[in-house]
């Protein structure tokens, strides 16, 4: 306790020096937190906005027949995997909409609405009308609506190869933010999809999202092993987006390097300031040793100094870093616009960074502490 008391007094007595080093630590840690959270958020934002509202894993037929038999067994396994967040069977097929002389190709996607909504977030995307509640109702995308000049309640005639034509009623319009989807996809219920394309009770795919989208490949492998079915293939977004992943990995590595350099600079800063402090405080340490403080307690003073500097500096750095991140978002976003980055506050990263800074600062005190071990009180007394 005496060592802690002396450490506090040493730090508060040399106030200007302490403030400067605390400022240095706080700036370094704030940059580490800012860069770490920013790059983490950037990665998440890129992934979220690239993948959008789309499935992370798709299970489809592996052979010439586009449909899956006994798909309920697959759904059963998917339902019982605790990594899966949402899933939906789908009966999907190509069709045409006649407009004047032209035939517009569309993809009819039959889903149970509540299931599909958890994957595609359709409810939020509907800007006019409502979701399909009964069979033979359909949701149309913004671009296709503009092209066909449709309204809620209008009838839409679909031409399906080999099956003839079928008529659906427009229940509403959606905008998923992706023009190609808005122009091509029609959402309808599963039964309608199965009926239009004559799939019977079968489906063309089972789509699912997982709780941690970076674990999609692992979940994919787990399901493959569990289902052990050669007639199906299981694809995940990571395998389909290797270039994106490699870009993200590059970002992650550069972020890690920046953080390592920052931590190294914190160590050097604290160790050098405390090394100077040993020289400055050698008369005090010498006299304490003469009065009977043992080497361990004398060196503990510098360990405590490192710990206290790390504690206060890192907390100030955390507050500053988080403040910087929010300030960055505020300054780069105009009122009413979507922020360029969605902040994902990774508590684990913040706590880990704080603990690392604290441990590293404490360890930085070891170097001057070792120096203080060699301090001979005789030299101090002789020099006066």
């Amino acid at each position: 306790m005496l060592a802690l008391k002396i450490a506090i007094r040493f730090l508060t007595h040399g106030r200007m020096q302490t403030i400067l080093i605390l400022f240095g630590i706080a700036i370094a840690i704030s940059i580490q937190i800012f860069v770490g959270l920013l790059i983490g958020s950037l990665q998440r934002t890129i992934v979220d906005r690239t993948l959008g509202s789309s499935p992370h894993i798709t299970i489809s037929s592996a052979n010439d027949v586009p449909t899956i038999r006994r798909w309920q067994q697959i759904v059963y396994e998917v339902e019982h995997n605790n990594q899966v967040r949402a899933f939906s069977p789908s009966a999907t097929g190509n069709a045409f909409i006649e407009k004047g002389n032209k035939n517009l190709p569309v993809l009819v996607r039959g889903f149970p609405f509540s299931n599909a909504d958890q994957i595609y977030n359709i409810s939020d995307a509907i800007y006019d009308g409502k979701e399909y509640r009964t069979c033979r109702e359909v949701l149309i995308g913004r671009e296709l609506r503009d092209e066909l000049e449709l309204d809620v309640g209008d009838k839409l005639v679909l031409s399906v190869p080999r099956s003839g034509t079928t008529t659906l009623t427009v229940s509403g319009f959606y905008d998923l933010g992706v023009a190609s989807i808005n122009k091509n996809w029609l959402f309808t219920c599963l039964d309608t999809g199965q009926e239009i394309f004559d799939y019977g009770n079968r489906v063309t795919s089972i789509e699912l999202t997982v709780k941690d989208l970076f674990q999609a490949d692992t979940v994919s492998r787990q399901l493959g092993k569990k289902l052990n079915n050669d007639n199906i293939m299981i694809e995940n977004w990571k395998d389909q987006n290797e270039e994106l992943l490699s870009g993200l990995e590059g970002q992650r590595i550069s972020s890690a390097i920046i953080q390592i350099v920052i931590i190294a600079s914190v160590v050097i800063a604290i160790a050098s300031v405390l090394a100077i402090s040993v020289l400055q405080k050698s008369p005090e340490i010498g006299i304490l040793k003469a009065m009977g403080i043992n080497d361990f307690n004398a060196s503990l003073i510098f360990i405590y100094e490192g710990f206290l500097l790390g504690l206060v500096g890192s907390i100030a750095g955390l507050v500053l870093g988080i403040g910087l991140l929010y300030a960055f978002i505020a300054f780069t976003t105009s009122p009413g616009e979507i922020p360029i980055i969605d902040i994902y506050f990774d508590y684990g990263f913040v706590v880990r960074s704080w603990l690392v800074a604290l441990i590293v600062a404490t360890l930085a005190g070891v170097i001057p502490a070792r120096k203080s071990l060699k301090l001979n009180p005789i030299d101090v007394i002789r020099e006066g």
Partner: protein
Amino acid sequence: MSGIIQLKQVNKTYHGAVDLQVLFDINLSFEAGTCNAITGVSGSGKTTLLNIISTLDCPSHGDVLINGKLVNEMTKNQLARLRNETIGFVFQFHHLLPEFTALENVLMPYLIKRWRPSLDVVRRADELFEMLEITGIKHSLSTRMSGGQQQRTAIARALINTPKIILADEPTGNLDSETTAKICQVFRAINQRYGTTFIIVTHNYLVAEHTDRIIDIKDGRIISDKKKNYG
């Protein structure tokens, strides 16, 4: 030979480019409760002798016994405890910790062995402040005291653990004659009141005059050892 401090055939040589022997076959014994002065000119070896007695330095040859215990064989931690509990130090340069108040400085040797001061020790500190006539600066930082106040605070610090021995190295070296006389009176008063053994290194003859025994050193050898009270 008996006494609270005993030195047997103590030699000290500093090794360097040229070996320099500063103490030669010193044999001394200090009785408990006596007030002793070690005098000599600069470079005579008196401070080296005091450093060896204080266990801060070790002899090249010979034995040092404190309370009958051979200090040469003690570990660093045992020596630290011995210094803390048995020896009080007063230096030429007071060596107060500038970050602490006079009271905190005085309590420091006690806090080295116990983490919180007891009521008794705080009361003892108050008594010492009163005896040394420095109660008014109890809560002042050492940097805001006069030289005499600093030295008196250092004396109070040396006494807080009621050590059996006080070692003082040129305690009045930086003080004027009036303050020097007062400090000498304080040493004598403490010696008589608590039975503390004093060993004072000084080249000031007036300071030595206040003691019971004057040991004169020249070129690392004792050239005279006069016990005033015993003829």
